[in-house]
């Protein structure tokens, strides 16, 4: 009975979402749509990092590296030979790569797969490391990937980056991938396998003793996460339509980490909310950089003020909501409906 009600509500919510996206795509300006779509990409990225950080307890700072792999693979696989020739004006591209051109969905999968493959080759040996050591090692891997991309002129065009990548990241594409990621994560986390991940997070020794192959679980989580990061990176590339190695620095990883923690480490709902809030907020605060005329205070535009305020807001959230907006809880209809019920109840005199 109850389950049925919730399923219905979920379906209704989904329909509403599809409708909202269609409406937004059709009516909102390109700017708003761009921000919206960027949020969707950040949802994918945040979920992928949350899988590691929040659900498997693996502290990784290497996400930008896997995103870079995905972005480059997909960009190079979808570009036409002519576009590649235009880009590689310093040194010609490797011949075999020049002539490959795949349809976007295949390239997107290849992007994820390559990121996953890189994770297997370089990341998995590092999984023996604990906490901070793992974090710093993954950070190292990301930097190595970036340095390799910078220096591999005839493969990646080096510092010149790639331009005129086809803009495949339309509203429907990015939101479908985001929705798919959410569903996938929910299904994974709530499955038996997902439980073993949480067990590894909480106490490795106990997990191992209860027959959980800790190394395998960690590796699986790491590879899945990297796959998603690769896909996210590819989407980002196809949205901005140009990429270069400087995009994929530690700052990018930090931004995603921030979304994860702000939303709630270990909460899928949190990552979704976090991604949207952070992306929108960054743009919403843009007015701070502009010349202002506030009653008596006049500024000539203080570039950087936006980032100052953003950093302060971030610190306030972390200081006052130490487990992020959602903690490690998930949205569910019972809780949601409960909020309204409680409101009614508290006015009737509940415990404060």
């Amino acid at each position, binding site marked *: 009975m109850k389950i049925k009600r919730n399923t219905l509500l979920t379906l209704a919510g989904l329909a509403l979402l599809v409708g909202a996206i269609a409406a937004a795509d059709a009516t909102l*300006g*390109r*700017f*708003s749509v*761009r*921000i919206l779509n*960027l949020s969707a990409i950040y949802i994918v990225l945040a979920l992928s990092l949350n899988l590691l950080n929040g659900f498997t307890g693996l502290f990784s700072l290497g996400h930008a590296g896997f995103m870079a792999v995905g972005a480059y693979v997909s960009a190079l696989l979808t570009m036409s030979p002519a*576009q590649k020739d*235009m*880009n590689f*004006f*310093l*040194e010609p591209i490797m011949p075999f790569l020049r002539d490959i051109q795949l349809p976007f969905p295949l390239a997107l999968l290849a992007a994820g797969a390559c990121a996953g493959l890189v994770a297997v080759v370089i990341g998995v040996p590092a999984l023996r490391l604990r906490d901070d050591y793992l974090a710093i090692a993954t950070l190292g891997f990301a930097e190595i990937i970036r*340095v390799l991309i*910078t*220096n591999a*002129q005839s493969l990646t065009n*080096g*510092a*010149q*980056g790639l*331009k*005129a990548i086809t*803009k495949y990241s339309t509203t429907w594409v990015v939101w479908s991938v985001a929705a798919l990621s959410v569903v996938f994560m929910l299904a994974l986390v709530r499955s038996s396998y997902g439980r073993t991940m949480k067990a590894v997070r909480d106490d490795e020794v106990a997990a191992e003793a209860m027959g959980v192959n800790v190394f395998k679980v960690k590796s699986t989580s790491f590879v899945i996460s990297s796959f998603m990061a690769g896909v996210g990176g590819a989407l*980002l590339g196809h*949205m*901005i*339509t*140009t*990429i*270069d*190695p*400087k*995009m994929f620095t530690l*700052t990018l990883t930090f931004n995603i980490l921030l979304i994860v923690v702000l939303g709630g480490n270990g909460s899928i709902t949190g990552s979704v909310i976090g991604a949207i809030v952070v992306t929108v907020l*960054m*743009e919403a605060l*843009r007015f701070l*950089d*502009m010349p202002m005329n506030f009653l008596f205070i006049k500024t000539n*535009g203080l*570039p*950087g003020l*936006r*980032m100052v305020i953003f950093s302060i807001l971030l610190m306030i959230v972390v200081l006052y909501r130490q487990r992020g907006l959602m903690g490690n809880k998930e949205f569910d209809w019972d809780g949601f409906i409960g909020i309204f019920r409680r409101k009614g109840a508290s006015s009737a005199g509940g415990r404060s």
Partner: protein
Amino acid sequence: SKAETKTDANVVKFGVFEPLTGANAAGGAEELDGVRLAQELYPTVTVGGKEYKIELAIADNKSDKVEAANAGQRLVDSDKVQVVLGSWGSGLSMAAGPVFKDAKIPAIGLSCTNPLVTKDNPFYFRVCFLDPFQGTVMANYAFKDVKARKAVIIREVSNDYSVGLAKFFADSFKSLTGDQGAILAELNYNTNDQDFSAQLTQVKSLKPDVIFAPGNYTESALIIKQARELGITAPFLGGDTWEIAEFINVGKQAVEGAVMSAFFDNDAPLTPLSKVFVESYQKKYGKLPSGTAVLGFDGYLLAIDAIKRADSVDPLKIRDAIAATKDFAGAAGYVTLDANGDPIKSAVIKEVKGGKFVFKTTVAP
């Protein structure tokens, strides 16, 4: 008040799309200075007998590609600009390029020298010369004026500008000397590195006639300083990015004699406007202008010129007028745009002397 300006028919909006924070902030600020000065001098444009007020909409792209695309979109969408000026940093321009192209808003690059910026984008133009030209100019200088036969290149491998210049310098220098081994070594460093002693010790042992080291001014100044400390005496050549006060402040005594290509020189007026620019700049900012500031100035003027020629504030018509630019006289020389939207214009060569950038010569394309 925002809504009012939007409906005000007598306003044209220029978007200024620059990195005002982050790694490229200094460059962005330079260009913005030039644009602001131009606006102060020429605040209006007359179209069809009607006077339009020019407003600037400034968007910070934070030296970040993702942000750059957002900022560009914002200029187009929320600020509804008719023309865009900027950005310092070719990568940032490329990130927003498609946005302008989709919205059919013309953009004028100021100092973004990467050939890719305007490629495949009929809506992107620029008022500066390109990396290949600059690299070639410096190779010529090295060969003819320095009489160098062996060179070493030190490049900032993570910087497209530096890598591009290095490549074109190497190609020209090799063909000028007719010696495939004329480049003794290409040594690399990364953005934000501060210790170059290892590379420079290597350079010292190679005993080159000249060292070409295009790159960011801070790193470059440190490179030259450390080179002199190691006892390297060969002259240093670089590109337009060096022409900024900080280069001399950081490098001090050590950068004396460093030679660079530049867009413009205060002492060698290229057009009647040059003098106007230098004088009013000094009045407004109390210092000598840099090469990038003048490009901000010129970009703004080119936009006005195009509007006048189009006799319309319709972005599409402005675009066509920009594309047809011929012998436009800016403060930094005459601009004629080619089919790509790139200018054919001359470069200036300067040297640091007595703590100042001193004019050496002009090089025509």
